[in-house]
């Protein structure tokens, strides 16, 4: 019956743009918004592989999102690589970045790990910011070409397809022996060492996988906006998937994606209500996070327990 529900949701999602497109300009805008929701959902899910399942709080995940975005932008703009090839390169390049950064970060645990991810995130941000000749500095890279076939509806469908594929892949990973092992490490790192788990290797590998998925989402995001800019790597961008995971449920696979969509929706509503309000977006995010931390942590654990006893 779970499959039936999933199929229904999928049918709904596939038909969504066709329905929306009937509403003219407004409808097209919402197709665009929905596409962004899907992409940010993928980004949030990628973070949650290390945050929820691995118990590693990364404050620099946007680095890989940004690397993916710039990979697509640079390859298409400077090397005229076709879109699909550039998109395929995004997770690879992000994975390489995650391999290097992860090597350092997994040497540390807890707090120290978080500090280092933040620092490396800012380092990449700075490099992109400074390296004007290559990355365009704070101008970013504009005018990424768009293949003709990718109308808003088709691009939405492409993103949805990739999202579903990634979801299946992550599900496989989470339910595999590897997935069990990273949860084991999250539960009790010391004990894990004493049942013969090479903790660092698993955390490292998990970090790389999460980075690759983030890179893919970044690549999709660059093509959606048809530009890449330094904001994509900024530390505040790293906050979004954390929040999405918290709001949607850290211990489920699809929860963060739902959280991302909810947050995105909130942002749009805020924007519609008053243009100036969007200035305060970070304040809103911060307050939501504050409230969740202060008043709902046990609620989150509750969600976790339910998920845990049911399926994992």
């Amino acid at each position: 019956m779970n499959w039936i529900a999933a199929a229904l949701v999928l049918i709904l999602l596939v038909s969504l743009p066709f329905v929306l497109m009937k509403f003219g300009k407004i409808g097209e805008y919402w197709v665009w918004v929905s596409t962004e929701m899907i992409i940010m959902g993928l980004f949030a899910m990628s973070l949650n592989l290390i945050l929820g399942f691995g118990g590693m709080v990364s404050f620099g995940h946007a680095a890989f999102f940004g690397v993916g975005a710039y990979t697509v932008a640079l390859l298409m703009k400077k090397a005229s690589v076709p879109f699909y090839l550039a998109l395929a390169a995004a997770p690879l390049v992000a994975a390489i970045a995650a391999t290097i950064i992860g090597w350092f970060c997994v040497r540390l645990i807890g707090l120290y790990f978080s500090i280092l991810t933040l620092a490396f995130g800012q380092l990449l941000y700075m490099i992109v910011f400074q390296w004007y000749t290559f990355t365009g500095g704070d101008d970013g890279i504009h005018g990424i070409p768009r293949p003709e076939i990718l109308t808003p509806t088709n691009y939405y469908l492409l993103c949805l397809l990739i999202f579903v594929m990634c979801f299946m892949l992550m599900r496989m990973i989470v339910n595999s022996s590897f997935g069990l092992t990273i949860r084991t490490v999250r539960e009790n790192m010391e004990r894990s060492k004493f049942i013969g788990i090479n903790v660092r290797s698993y955390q490292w590998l998990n970090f790389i996988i999460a980075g690759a998925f983030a890179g893919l989402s970044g690549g999709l995001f660059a093509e959606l906006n048809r530009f890449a800019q330094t904001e994509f790597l900024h530390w505040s961008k790293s906050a979004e998937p954390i929040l999405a995971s918290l709001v949607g449920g850290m211990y489920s696979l699809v929860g963060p994606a739902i959280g991302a969509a909810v947050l995105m929706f909130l942002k749009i509503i805020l924007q519609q209500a008053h243009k100036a309000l969007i200035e305060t977006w970070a304040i809103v995010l911060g307050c939501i996070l504050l409230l969740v931390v202060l008043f709902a942590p046990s609620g989150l654990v509750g969600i976790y327990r339910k998920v845990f006893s049911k399926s994992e």
Partner: protein
Amino acid sequence: MAKPVLEVVNLSKSFDGAQVFNDISYTVEEGELSSIIGPNGAGKTTMFNLITGHLVPDRGEVLFMGQDIVGKQPFEIVKLGMARAFQRTSIFPRMSVLENVVTTIITREHGNLNMFKAFRKRDKVYSEAYELLKSVELEGMAERQSGVLAHGNQKRLDIAIALALKPKLLLLDEPTAGMSPEERKQTVELVKNLWERLDLTMLFIEHDMDIVFGISQKVRVLCYKTLLAEGTPEQISANPQVIEAYLGEEV
């Protein structure tokens, strides 16, 4: 017998200049059920931490099955066949009792890097885990969340996790700590049972003298940074030095 499983040779360790061990040597032979005792603060748990690779000795060697293991990571030593259970129970609290054991078996089988095979489908692993839980009498709680179990049951689970590694040498750090007298008796029975059935070499740390003298074949006394005495329970309880240094204050 007579084949050494664990050899500790001239082991020394200090923290911040304060010496904990000075030049300790002993050998644990295959199939032995032996114990380490010593007053509080004698460094019994530190001894385990040195053997299992959690700490690195300043000087000396630790040989396991003839192989030097100083400087190896804990997980590497585990893979060579050494397992431990903890004084302060160490389990995976938010996993089910069964999963605690399953994850350990999967790790033992080196199969945990496989990202594409759902672990749940490995029936063999599950039936083995279930058998193991039976041997520590936890089979009735297999589906319960391990973190909510009573203390005594958590300790049993801790032992089950260690056993799931199919170790050659099993180190137990105060297996009866924090238990009621009734539970103690049961646990001692369990330990003895497991040892007889599984053809294990066991080394345990214990506080309770009745337990130590009741089941160990050999007792080692850690005191004043050195190995004060080593021998059968009868020899140890008759040793004047031990009585003065350790038993005297308790009896």
